[in-house]
């Protein structure tokens, strides 16, 4: 018995060495692409396209942007895509990384449960009014598209309106500058500013609930929170199926990114650009076939 076991182990080792050697040629080595946990990435990455590009990108799932950065700086992973303002924030704070602009665009929407159409309409009406009176643009300019490295955090928090009903909003604090927790431990960033304006506009109380990103969907479906502050979508993707499956509704878009950037380690620009170009070509040929 012992002999058989050791033989089996030895053959496994030999096989794995052989397969390592076969994977070596650097020319066609696929990129390990970090995607932020499953459900969210399926909304902003086109699943058919990802399947088509499986020889070029190998998706690896990560919990948060910080984890993805860790994976990229340590070499576990080669690149990941973030909206431009996040890329600016990352590059300003981490000098080991570089970015390359793509043509993708992400939209930011809030998510609520399917049964809560009223809540969605309420939030939508708030967002519309803020859009019309220019308040939303001012907030975006101040917190997202402006000089995001030296933004002042919203120290005030959201004032409590007595007697009004309360909406609980899930925030992660892991998506700077859209949402983060400042050095004093307060929620800060665009989310607080926008929710503050919405609270005033709609005359409701808003309670922020900080939780790990991957627990957000569970929290929403169990009723522990009413709203997910950000759900990333790609306007070109048809996501009705995925939303249906997850029993979710989205509000109207409150922010649209000014393009997206691929983040990678310094000094790997050529490799990354070549592979991204290859990916684009592959996708274009698929389009043609259609």
């Amino acid at each position, binding site marked *: 018995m012992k002999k058989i076991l050791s033989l089996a182990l030895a053959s496994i080792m030999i096989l794995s060495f052989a397969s390592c050697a076969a994977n070596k040629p650097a020319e066609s080595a696929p990129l390990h692409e970090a995607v932020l946990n499953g459900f969210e990435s399926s909304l902003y990455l086109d699943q058919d396209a990802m399947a088509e590009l499986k020889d070029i990108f190998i998706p690896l799932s990560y919990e948060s942007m910080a984890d993805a950065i860790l994976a990229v700086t340590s070499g576990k992973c080669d690149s990941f895509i973030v909206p431009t303002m996040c890329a600016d924030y990352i590059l300003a*704070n*981490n000098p080991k990384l570089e970015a390359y602009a793509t043509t993708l665009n992400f939209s930011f929407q809030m998510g609520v449960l399917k049964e809560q159409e009223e809540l969605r309409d309420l939030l939508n009406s708030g967002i519309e009014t803020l859009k019309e009176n220019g308040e939303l643009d001012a907030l975006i300019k101040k917190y997202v598209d402006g000089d995001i490295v030296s933004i002042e955090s919203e120290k005030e928090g959201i004032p409590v309106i007595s007697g009004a009903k309360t909406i609980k909003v899930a925030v992660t604090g892991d998506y700077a500058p859209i949402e983060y927790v400042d050095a004093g431990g307060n929620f800060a960033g665009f989310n607080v500013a926008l929710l503050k304006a919405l609270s005033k506009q709609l005359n409701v109380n808003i309670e922020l609930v900080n939780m790990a990103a991957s627990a957000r969907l569970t*929290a929403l479906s169990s009723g522990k929170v009413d709203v997910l502050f950000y759900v990333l979508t790609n306007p070109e993707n048809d996501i009705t199926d995925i939303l249906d499956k997850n029993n979710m509704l989205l509000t109207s878009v409150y922010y649209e990114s000014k393009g997206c950037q691929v983040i990678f380690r310094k000094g790997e620009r050529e490799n990354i650009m070549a592979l991204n170009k290859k990916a684009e070509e592959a996708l274009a040929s698929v389009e043609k076939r259609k």
Partner: protein
Amino acid sequence: MTVGDVFYKTLIEGGSYLIILKGLWVTVQISLLSILFGTVLGALVCVARMRKNRIISGITAGYIAVVRGSPVLLLLMLLYYVVFARSDLSAPMIAVLAFSLNLSAHTAECFRAALLATDKRQVEAARTLGFSKWQAFWLISLPQTAKIAKPTYQSALVNLIQWTSVVGYITISDLTRVINNTASRTMQPLFMIIVGMLLYLGLAYLCYGSFALVDRLSSRKEERKKIRN
């Protein structure tokens, strides 16, 4: 960016160390309460498990198997998002409950193994010498059990402290959550992971250290007794 810059930016600037200490305090509170309730519950479960009544010992054996065999994170999420989803119990309370349940199963088995390892004949001898059942347990079995159970119990506690790092899933800002938030804000995840590890290591050694201290104090007490005699 030098290490000094990173250190300043992540830990000092804007009083960020204060919030990390606050997270540490949350972790310590949840751990201490869970250790307290978990140990008491564990002792009770152990007693029930040792009963001759088949039904009671069977039920407790089942309880131990289920709780010990399932990941504490899933137990935590089950309690928070399903069982107590509509109740007003706060998240930290539910965390304490989940970790107490988990620890109780581990300590119950640890106590039982230690009890079984003590020499039964000593208790019998004590009983024939006229000790009551309670006296025999308190004076003969318990001191030996405690000695045997200590290493396993100790590592169960340290495991528990480390396991509390998942409470971020149920909206609690504990040490791990605060470390992650700081990493996301400063975009220096590697450095923050090291800081977090050192803090958890500190907690673990605080736990080991307190056991060693108790050991030393009790051995000193015994020595004094000997001298007096």
